């Protein structure tokens, strides 16, 4: 079996497209939610490639989700193809600002600073009650697509396919980034930052670029979540949301593009079934699943798939 890597991606996208038509509607909704989260997990993984762990991706995740909410509330924009780029743009803008400060730090300092910034946004969202709706959040009406009014099941399906398309685009972009000089250099920064600097590569610019890409991806995840759920609340900026993204990154594995996406899908499924079968102990089930994966698949859920794939490639 000698398939190019792109073919696997095409196959997976085709599978997701079919899934939208054959799976029950609640599962399709869950899948859309998982893909949106998966894109945000990719944003964590991009930073991990450069040796940085962010506990504050909620800043961009929630920032973009609220950007979509405000665009709808203030300007009445309901076009999904406008809302998504606008929200992602805003997240990248936030990333450009935050990155000026944060990208200079490493290790625990980077983690703490990103966490702090996301909690600042959380505080603002909760307290600026008159503007943001406080803890009640903002309702996001059903978006339109190319001016088409959507409702009910059609709207769900359209948002799902939007998530599939955006996820495919994000996965492709991250794949390209990882194979590009900037991506390799980010990896090198993780291994030995001083040596990269001595080789003449601009370390700060490499990290800043990774941070920008990461904020855009987290923003894309946030925008998709907002359109899918139909409601945004400050919980999206809370540190548990950011922590969950790191959790899923570890669960799925950080070495590949598909690992985090698979991790997000598996995580949402485990959580849903834990809710269903163990309403009093679902947190414990999710935690136990995490422990088992760390113990038996230290490379993440995707690592056995990757191994088989490599072996097939020879």
């Amino acid at each position: 079996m000698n398939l190019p890597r792109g073919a696997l991606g095409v196959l997976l996208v085709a599978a997701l497209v079919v899934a939208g038509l054959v799976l029950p509607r609640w599962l399709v909704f869950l899948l859309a939610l998982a893909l949106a989260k998966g894109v945000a997990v990719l944003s964590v993984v991009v930073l991990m490639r450069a040796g940085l762990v962010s506990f504050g991706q909620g800043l961009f995740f929630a920032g973009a989700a609220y950007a979509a909410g405000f665009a709808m509330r203030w300007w009445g924009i309901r076009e999904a193809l406008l809302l998504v780029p606008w929200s992602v743009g805003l997240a990248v803008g936030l990333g450009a600002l935050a990155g000026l400060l944060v990208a200079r730090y490493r290790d625990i300092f980077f983690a703490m600073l990103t966490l702090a910034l996301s909690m600042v946004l959380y505080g603002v969202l909760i307290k600026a009650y008159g503007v943001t709706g406080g803890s009640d959040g903002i309702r996001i009406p059903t978006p339109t697509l190319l001016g088409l009014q959507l409702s009910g099941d059609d709207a769900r399906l359209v948002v799902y396919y939007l998530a599939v398309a955006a996820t495919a685009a994000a996965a492709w972009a991250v794949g390209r980034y990882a194979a590009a000089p900037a991506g390799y250099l980010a990896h090198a920064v993780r291994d030995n930052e001083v040596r990269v600097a001595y080789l003449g590569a601009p370390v700060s610019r490499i990290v800043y670029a990774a941070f920008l890409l990461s904020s855009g991806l987290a923003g894309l995840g946030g925008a998709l979540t907002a359109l899918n759920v139909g409601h945004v609340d400050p919980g999206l900026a809370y540190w548990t949301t950011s922590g969950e993204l790191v959790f899923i990154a570890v669960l799925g594995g950080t070495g590949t593009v598909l690992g985090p996406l698979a991790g997000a899908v598996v995580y949402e499924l485990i959580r849903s079934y834990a809710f269903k079968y163990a309403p009093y102990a679902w947190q414990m089930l999710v935690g136990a699943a995490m422990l088992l994966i760390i113990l038996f698949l230290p490379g993440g859920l995707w690592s056995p798939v990757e191994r088989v794939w490599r072996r097939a490639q020879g």
Partner: protein
Amino acid sequence: MARSAKGWLAVGLALGVLVTAVGVRTWAGPVRPAEVRVGIVTFLSGAAAAPFGIPARNAAEVIISELNAGRVPAPYNTPGIGGVPIRPVIIDEAGGAEKQVAELRRLVLDERVDLVIGYISSADCLAVAPVAEELRALLVMFDCGTNQIFEERTYRYVFRTHGHQILDNVGAARYILRIRPQVATIAGINQNYAWGQDSWNTFRDSMRKLKPDVRVLAEQFPRLFAGEYSAELSALLAARPDVIHTSFWGGDLESFLIQGLPRRIYERSTLVLTTGDTVLPRLGQQIPPGVVIGARGPHGALAPNVPLNRWFREVYTNRFNVRPVYPSYHMSQAIFGVKHAYEKALAANRGAWPTKEQVAAALRGATFDTPSGTIRMALGNGHQAVEGVAYGITSRFNTATREMELTQVFHFPAECVNPPEGMKSEEWIARGFPGARCP
């Protein structure tokens, strides 16, 4: 060969039954089910579980098992719903609005519940209401406080069988002016999120309307779950307001009371606890006399002495060794509202099992009895309940109930503390409560 012929006969018979069943189904509406599946969503984990989520779940459990056994007093003495047993499907409200939207879809589409009763958090209510409408699923919200839901949009499948936060705080203002008409200064300490901000704004604006010369000395908004209030207490003690209003709940309320006791905050100012009923059984003698206690309606210690309430208190206390608090009463209102609506629709349908639309039509604008008294679905086009509100003041410790007794209990009827249909709450208060009829 004989076996296979028999097999074909069986298949044929089965097909025949199926076709008939489908035929009957499309012809005469839904078939009477073997059970009515009710999704129940309430906090089973997190900070809101102990004060609200678990008392509500307990109420659901005991009421549903008593209903199924046919042991509830009239008018709910028929078993289950129209003789069909109720089957609860209980899930946790934790995980945020995003998770709850996904869970509501799963309950309706995967678990095939006939209706959902749930939601304590206002953010969850706001997020799930449009989803229930999209799924055409009956949703009865049982405890969330925000007044936004039916004031901003109309619904067909979504109901709320308890009053929203307006009545707590308009009622608190009216009660204060009744027991302390000379009140000149007020202060508030509320959690810094939508519930706290809404509650304080409603109370403050109502006080200003009812007694325009009242001065506000302090408005404090510590963060949710702060748990430590020494700075706030110092500021409140220094300001010496006549009245301190708080909509604190759960652990925050208990912390605030316990930290305020040694500093005698209640001696200088009259404390008003709009959710105070939930801590009466928990704190017992630790609550000083002279504290104004609310229960977000005529619930808990302030519930009316009617047969349904006596029954409810008894079965609940026997099972859980503690009396029901207001979230338990809110849950009872939702369940009895649903039973009432189903049975009304059954009667209108001459005994044939009703569709969701028929049940919704029966609940719209309905009036039904509950342990909290009679509930009327009077607002939001018949989708939002109004109820009265009661307040009382702690007097002395009752060793039999192990709770502080309430005196000067006063009950404000629904039309005194709720805006009339079609008017937003803010506007109603700003215009000086037009149409309010108070005793």
